[in-house]
């Protein structure tokens, strides 16, 4: 067996952490949201040792051809536990795993699956090849023992917008962007359930580390136009109306864009921008202050470069 750097790091961390911190296991509780489709609700919190990074929502779809997963969690251990729970639920092996976008809370669990059944948009696979190592290092640093054995694996199956069918159950694939450079959304034709990935957050503030806000708005408009039933957001509770979560995500990013633009234009520093009042209509959103401060870090330098005038003079 090859000893990789990652195994060595994980091993030494595990030794250092024992016996005070025994290895914990993930509690995975799928909830049915429509015929043959379940949602696992991730913790509506930041990635932290208390939740092992299990903060993203995951969908399980039973089809006559086998079990389909949409996203697969933050780590090898999560992916393994997820597979067991999903296969127990449907009585069928996992035949497809979709990874909606590059963020590690959604996709590092693919370490537990055969890459040949793991599908993602080409833009997601390219971004993972480029940035995956950095994300992986950050996850180990944050979660150490939870990440044990998790190797960076790239999805082996590039997909485009279109349709995939599993023994008669059809899934529409929507290739969008805005939360990241490539965001996959899925529509289950039988139930009408829309799986939004991180394009849609619900009662949990959206995160923006790789966001392009105009592109995100366009994608939300597209999802709103797409006829659908209930909606599984990337984070936060199931939205039975299918409309509320899209509208709320749109409202937040519009407010964020406007508030930070005004902050730069009225001379606020980043610290002050992170302390701006958050409107009362967002009081149901978990992690709002946390995500606002993160968004200031992501978006403020770009806004300053765009909005503050050049004042340099020669000699």
């Amino acid at each position: 067996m090859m000893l990789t750097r990652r195994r060595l790091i994980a091993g030494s961390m595990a030794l250092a952490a024992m016996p005070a911190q025994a290895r914990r296991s993930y509690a995975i509780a799928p909830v049915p949201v429509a015929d043959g489709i379940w949602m696992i609700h991730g913790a509506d919190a930041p990635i932290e040792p208390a939740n092992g990074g299990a903060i993203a929502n995951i969908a399980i779809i039973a089809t006559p051809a086998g079990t389909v997963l949409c996203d697969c969690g933050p780590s090898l251990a999560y992916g393994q536990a997820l597979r067991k729970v999903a296969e127990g639920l449907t009585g069928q092996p996992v035949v497809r795993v979709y990874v909606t976008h590059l963020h590690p809370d959604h996709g590092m669990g693919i370490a537990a699956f055969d890459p040949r059944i793991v599908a993602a948009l080409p833009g997601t696979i390219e971004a993972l090849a480029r940035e995956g190592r950095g994300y992986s290092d950050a996850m180990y640093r944050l979660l150490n023992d939870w990440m044990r054995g998790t190797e960076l694996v790239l999805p082996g199956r590039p997909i485009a917008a279109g349709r995939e069918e599993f023994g008669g159950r059809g899934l529409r694939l929507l290739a969008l962007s805005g939360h990241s450079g490539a965001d996959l959304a899925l529509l289950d034709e039988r139930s009408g359930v829309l799986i939004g990935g991180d394009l849609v957050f619900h009662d949990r503030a959206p995160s923006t580390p790789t966001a392009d806000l105009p592109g995100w708005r366009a994608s939300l408009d597209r999802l709103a136009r797409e006829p659908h039933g209930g909606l599984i957001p990337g984070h936060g509770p199931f939205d039975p109306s299918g409309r509320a979560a899209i509208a709320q995500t749109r409202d937040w990013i519009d407010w964020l864009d406007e508030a930070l633009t005004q902050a730069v234009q009225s001379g606020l520093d980043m610290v002050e921008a992170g302390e701006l009042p958050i409107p009362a209509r967002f009081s149901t959103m978990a992690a709002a202050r946390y995500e606002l401060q993160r968004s200031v870090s992501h978006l403020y330098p770009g806004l300053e470069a765009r909005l503050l005038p050049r004042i340099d003079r020669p000699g």
Partner: protein
Amino acid sequence: MTLALLALAAGAGASTPADPLESPMWEAHAKLLFGNDPVRFDPRVKVDFPQIAENQRSFPVAIDARAIPGVRRIVLMADLNPIPIAVDYRPTDSEAYLATRIKLDQRTPVRGAVQLASGEWLVSGGWIDAAGGGCSTPPVSRVKGDWADHLGEIRGEAWPVAGPVDASRLRLNFRHPMDTGLVDAIPTYHLERLTVSDAAGRELGRMEIWASVAEDPAITLIPHAAAGDMLAVDARDTNGRDYHAALAVARQSPLPR
């Protein structure tokens, strides 16, 4: 850096009060920085920063000591950084306020120390966990890398602020790599001096800057200048390159303090 710290020291050996943050480096830094001057922990020195360090390479910190009369000097430092001091600012004719962004090497106390005319230092601050993160933490190794094409660019603006004396909020963003000399074989290269003056060339504030300030330094100060006044900014880096900027304080009704 050791030399810089030694240069700051007025002496050595004075006993300093116990550190409420219990930093392992407090004694050593305090000796070098404060020498024999009296030191007191004082919450009126407001050291403000976000709950998490989303980007360890650029962590915003503001020091507001406007509640304390007679502040002559403001030092921003992070105890456990390899280059602990970030900025040493003299608000000659400015409010006792400074905001900028610094690099964080690890979990560390971040402090503001202000010196009064009497020589006494007032200190405050808190711990920040540099492990940072959340849904998709930024990759550990991302650098902009295009600084050479933009060196010398300065963006900024100044807005009048309400208060008992005419003052304006001055924001300055430089393009500069701010190399620490601690990464690979890249030698240290950073902005090291900055002065703000009025139209007559009178100094309103000046600072020494270290490489622990983030790449593309962003600095906010509150010089005593009224709406319409001209401000001049002069800076120099460790290669002896000079930077100049000029701007007028916006003619508009004052922002709240």
